[in-house]
């Protein structure tokens, strides 16, 4: 089995060479790793590599084929790129999907105020929405100028982390 995995900006090709119980030989790009790997919990792996003991947690991400991987001090977002992913991606590029114009809530909270309406033109840095969570209020500002095309939430709503708050149709490039 060979797969492409993206870890943030890095693209890596992983290939399983052999597996014998916990002993797995895997190529990451051109490097060969012989690891003793065993799943010890719902999301936890214990890996012994060159004698060293690592605990790595692999949590399914919000989208399929995405994983949040926690090593000792670090959190990595890893995506498995298979044929389907590549297809969707090429299609999106063709139609020009602009994910960056979608304002998402980074955490669960309550919508305190929505300062714009659908159809409004917004400037870079303009405050769009105020979300309150745990005694703190956070302002969400426009990263690009454009026109508000969608506001799927209302004031007073409780929202989940990563929920779409607002969509902006970018202004025509000058």
């Amino acid at each position, binding site marked *: 089995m060979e797969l492409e*995995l993206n870890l943030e900006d890095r693209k890596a090709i992983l290939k399983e060479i052999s597996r014998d119980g916990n002993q797995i030989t895997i190529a990451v790009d051109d490097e060969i790793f012989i690891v003793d*790997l065993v799943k010890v919990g719902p999301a936890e792996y214990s890996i012994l590599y060159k004698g060293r003991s690592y605990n790595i947690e692999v949590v399914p991400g919000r989208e399929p084929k995405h994983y949040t991987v926690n090593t000792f001090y670090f959190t990595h977002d890893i995506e498995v790129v298979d044929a389907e992913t590549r297809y969707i991606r090429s299609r999106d590029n063709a139609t020009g999907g602009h994910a960056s114009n979608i304002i998402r809530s980074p955490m669960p*909270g309550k919508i305190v105020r929505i300062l714009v309406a659908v159809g409004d033109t917004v400037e870079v840095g303009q405050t769009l929405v105020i979300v309150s969570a745990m005694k703190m209020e956070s302002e969400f500002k426009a990263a690009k100028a454009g026109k508000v095309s969608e506001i799927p939430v209302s004031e007073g709503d409780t929202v989940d982390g990563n929920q779409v708050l607002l969509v902006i149709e970018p202004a025509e490039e000058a």
Partner: protein
Amino acid sequence: MERKPIKKVLIANRGEIAVRIIRSCREMGIHTVAVFSDADRTSMHVRYAGEAFHIGPSPSNESYLNMDKILEVAKKAGADAIHPGYGFLSENAEFSRRCQQEGIIFIGPSPEAILGMGDKITARRTMINAGVPVVPGTTDAVTSEDEALETIRQIGLPVMIKASAGGGGKGMRLVKEEAHILSSLRGARSEAKTAFGNDAVYIEKYIDSPHHIEFQILADSQGNTVHLFERECSVQRRHQKVVEETPSPIMTPSVRAEMGAYAVAAAKAANYEGAGTIEFIVDDKLNYYFLEMNTRLQVEHPITERVVGVDLVKEQIRIAEGNPLPFSQEDLRQNGHAIECRIYAEDTDNNFMPNPGTITHITEPLGLGVRCDGYVYEGYTIPIYYDPMISKLIVWGKTREEAIERMRRALFEYKISGVKTSIKFLERIMDAPDFRKGGYNTHFIEDNLSFLMAETECAYECENLALIAAFVEYTTQLREIEQTMSPASSRHGSDWKEFGRRLAAWRL
């Protein structure tokens, strides 16, 4: 003095402090009653208490601040006392008075003591009368701008303008230059008006490299008052304590004895009964000034418990029962060193934004010298309505150095998944040379921000192992799916249980 044994305590709070109070009640054989809002039905304090009653919707002003409802539950459940914890109603004089009226023991000070210490100007005046050093400045609220200008000329710049009814940094202005005096004064007053409905402010000399050092006191109803030494609380972010330790690394035995005596004098001057804290501001030359008195249990009380060997919640309850303190000042000693780290659900890489969510996995640190006071559990969803503190991690060591090494070990063991936490940031604090040296002041986090926020690089090896783990997770799932979807297994199509079990295994 009448002594009335307490048999059942209602805890008018939630989170870790509610659990911590129930623990001490359990050890005393006292029954416990939890109260909860809509958001807290599954919270640990509800599960851990002997009884639990719903008191209203999630926002705290409709539940944990609803005095009528809480008193109604206390009467219904037959509680003879209420412990308010910290925050919420703990420093509410009206609630203390209402409890008195209803014949329920309020485990905390009298309404008069709360009022007296709650108003900063009154408190300041009381302390001056008792001979406790205060920061040079006004004794009365400043009413005119001319008066303010005159006072500032007398004290000399820099000064701090503070809201009389204030707290949490609101209505507060630091003035360093003559030109900014008036605009700062106006700003502070209007902010105070908005925040507290009262625009009274007072003016104090600004202490340049201030250390925040507080003394724990206990006072019984028979007039005995002792202090339980100091806590160093200078590691702060936005006036919020992050790490506390005791003893303070800058303290000397003679200054400690002096400040302790003043803390006792301050509590006596306030006619105080119960557990309280006298906060001092201390400069680099160990000049110290009374700052304010907190008329409740503090978040950071466990470090005192560990070093002095006293259960402060039990002492609060015994005092409320009318018992005399079981020890005198001479019986109390500081033994070793304790540090507390507050673990928040927050994204330290993203401006410390709160990060509520569902705990998918938690491993708490254990072993010699480690205490972890928390309330979240696997599968628990931290609500968005309350404080983002998940737990307090307290360690003890024979020396300060051992305590720091133990805290690093404990933070290393502490694993929480599902929400982002401040654990990594706290590890960096333990590693910061300025913290290790011990002479830090309240500017510590600000001054060390580049060290504390430095991006540590994941070694190439660790990145590759993360990729390998994700690869194995994905391919294992894929194989299982193929196996189940294959014709060989679909023959047993009716065996939905086995099928479910397998699917369950992948999704986990």
